[in-house]
């Protein structure tokens, strides 16, 4: 695929909308932006598999829906499995122009849904799985998940979470899937490009989209895009791809390898009410972890013999 075909100017994106007016997402909801961008990337020849999550509520209740594509709502832990069934059925029917997309939150991916996703990936199921990660069980009222970062307030960690977030893209990379990518709706063209690239690759494709959540993260609803940008600019969230085991940082993260180019994590943390209890020592600790992650990204990006490049050879 030529990158020119994948990445087009934002004004040239399709005017068609498949997340229609009347949806009931919170103001400033990043997953709603992500859904809209997903449809911009793929059009409407997709079947969406949605487990219990904010996105099972966002389209609105029966007899209405604001999603103009076929949707299979499914139980919380079963996105990977239900998608496997749909993919098998389409193959049996000889349908080869429809993309199956799992669209699940972080709880449904990191925690309760990890088994079904892992199984689907191991079976090389031909589908795209997008985890929109708002770092908590948002739909049930902001409880901690395996994706909640250290120090964050949630309703079940009222004094802040004591443990770190799982490094999920690397868990998926360890399944030797052909494509893993991170994204954030604050960088819409990057996300669209990654979704389109995923569509062209056969096998399980995993896209991990950071999804700032004003309701759970305690910031003003107008700041979603800004918070997402700060996540990337501070290096808290790195935009990268692992394509057939090869790790690559994407713009603007590829310009942030030098620590001096990254904004201090404090700028990101202080904008969010969920981090209000953090002391200076916590902030230092988080900064240190980010710096360590970047040393690893740097090594992976520069070392062509990294473990990840052994993809398919083990």
């Amino acid at each position: 695929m030529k990158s020119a075909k994948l990445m087009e100017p934002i004004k040239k994106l399709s005017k068609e909308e498949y997340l229609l007016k009347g949806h009931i997402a919170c103001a400033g909801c990043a997953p709603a932006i992500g859904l809209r961008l997903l449809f911009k990337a793929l059009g409407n020849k997709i079947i969406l598999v949605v487990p219990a999550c904010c996105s099972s509520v966002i389209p609105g209740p029966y007899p209405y829906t604001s999603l103009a594509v076929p949707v299979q709502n499914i139980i919380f832990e079963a996105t990977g499995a239900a998608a496997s069934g749909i993919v098998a059925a389409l193959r049996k029917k000889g349908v080869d122009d429809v993309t199956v997309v799992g669209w699940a939150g972080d709880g449904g991916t990191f925690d309760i849904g990890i088994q079904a996703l892992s199984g689907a990936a191991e079976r090389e199921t031909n589908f795209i799985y997008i985890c929109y990660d708002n770092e908590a069980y948002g739909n049930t009222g902001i409880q901690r998940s395996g994706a909640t970062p250290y120090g964050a307030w949630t309703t079940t960690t009222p004094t802040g979470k004591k443990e770190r977030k799982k490094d999920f893209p690397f868990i998926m990379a360890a399944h030797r899937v052909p494509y893993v990518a991170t994204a954030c709706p604050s960088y819409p063209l990057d996300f669209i490009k990654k979704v389109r690239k995923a569509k062209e690759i056969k096998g399980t494709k995993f896209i991990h989209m950071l999804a700032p959540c004003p309701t759970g993260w305690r910031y003003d609803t107008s700041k979603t895009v800004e918070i997402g940008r700060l996540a990337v600019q501070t290096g808290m969230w790195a935009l990268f791809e692992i394509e057939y085991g090869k790790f690559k940082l994407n713009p603007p993260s590829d310009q942030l390898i030098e620590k001096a180019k990254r904004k201090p994590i404090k700028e990101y943390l202080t904008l969010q009410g969920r981090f209000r209890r953090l002391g200076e020592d916590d902030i230092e600790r988080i900064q240190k972890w980010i710096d360590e992650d970047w040393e690893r990204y740097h090594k992976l990006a520069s070392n062509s013999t990294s473990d990840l490049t052994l993809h398919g050879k083990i």
Partner: protein
Amino acid sequence: MAQTVIDTANHIAAYAAKAARVQVIAAYPITPQTSIVERIAELVESGEFDAEYIRVESEHSAMAACIGAAAAGVRTFTATASHGLVLMHEPLHWASGSRLPIVMPVVNRALGPGWNIWADSTDSMSQRDTGWIQFYCADNQEVFDTIIQTYKLCENERVLLPVMICLEAFILSHTYMPVKIPDQDKIDEFLPPYKPKWFLDVSNPLSHANIVSPEWYMEFRYMMQEAMTNAKELIPEIDKEYGEHFGFEHGGLVDKYECEDADLIMLNMGTIGSEAKIAVDNLRSEGLKVGSARVRVFRPFPKEEIRELAAKTQMFAIVDRGISFGMEGFLAEETKASLCNQKDSPLIAGFVAGLGGRDVTFKTIEKIARKSVEWMRRGKVEEETVWVDLRE
């Protein structure tokens, strides 16, 4: 020409899936179901069985994958047992609530602890409220025939509910019996391809199983109840039609044996029904007017048939291979519930037997019948639930 094979019920179930032209199978192995999924794997990989076979990583995922496949509009199959079935509990509700015609053999096996791989009905009985139709089979022929029959049943637009085909661990699953397998073209004639009205289709985008408010939820559940009622009407018709095509009928909802003039009717399910027929013959040769009614379909429950039987007999002796702890055997409970508000109900005694694979032979059943006859003559049931052959 129909072909006679001598094989286990598990292998027969695999052949039935093939004969039904199942399109997607998603399954996970569990003793004693394994030889179903192994034989399907052989048939699929040899090219004899043209289906997609998903080797999922758990029973929960097996059912979720079946839901996805069935929602995408293909004929879908899985099989499980025991712990696998109870792990599926959540997606079982999702499958029936989504009105998806999935057919699933359940090899009835005990639940732990302690680990026990032998026959017991508590696994499927504990799923009786999931909205699945439940059949219980007495022999391998019935396993084959019921799988073919139930695709026709559950794909009917008046039904659209999934079906469990229950068969007892080892007693059927691993026991060789002769089975007549009809010609494929005749089966195709009886069971045409699945043509769903609604499925996941990009040219007609529908949202399946989305949020339903209190304004609508009850109506959806009412429709499931209606579907069960419709199934009750269709099951005997389909069984009869199958019999006309292939020469085998299995009694519709209740397989009755010598019930017409019976003073005592033994109600039972599964292979206990086969043993009961031998017991009935033996007891009748002694002059005891005994009959057996094998309840073939537990959901929808054949209330009306039970009432008809109740009206012409003096006593029911009900044998269950399972119990609802704190109450009674499952069939005993439902039978008693069916007779509420009926005039002149017979005496009813419940017998719990054969848990965890303990043998229930015709001799066991004769013993149960003699005890019941004794109580019948005295006009009094002295024990509501008898644990048969219990160690002191």
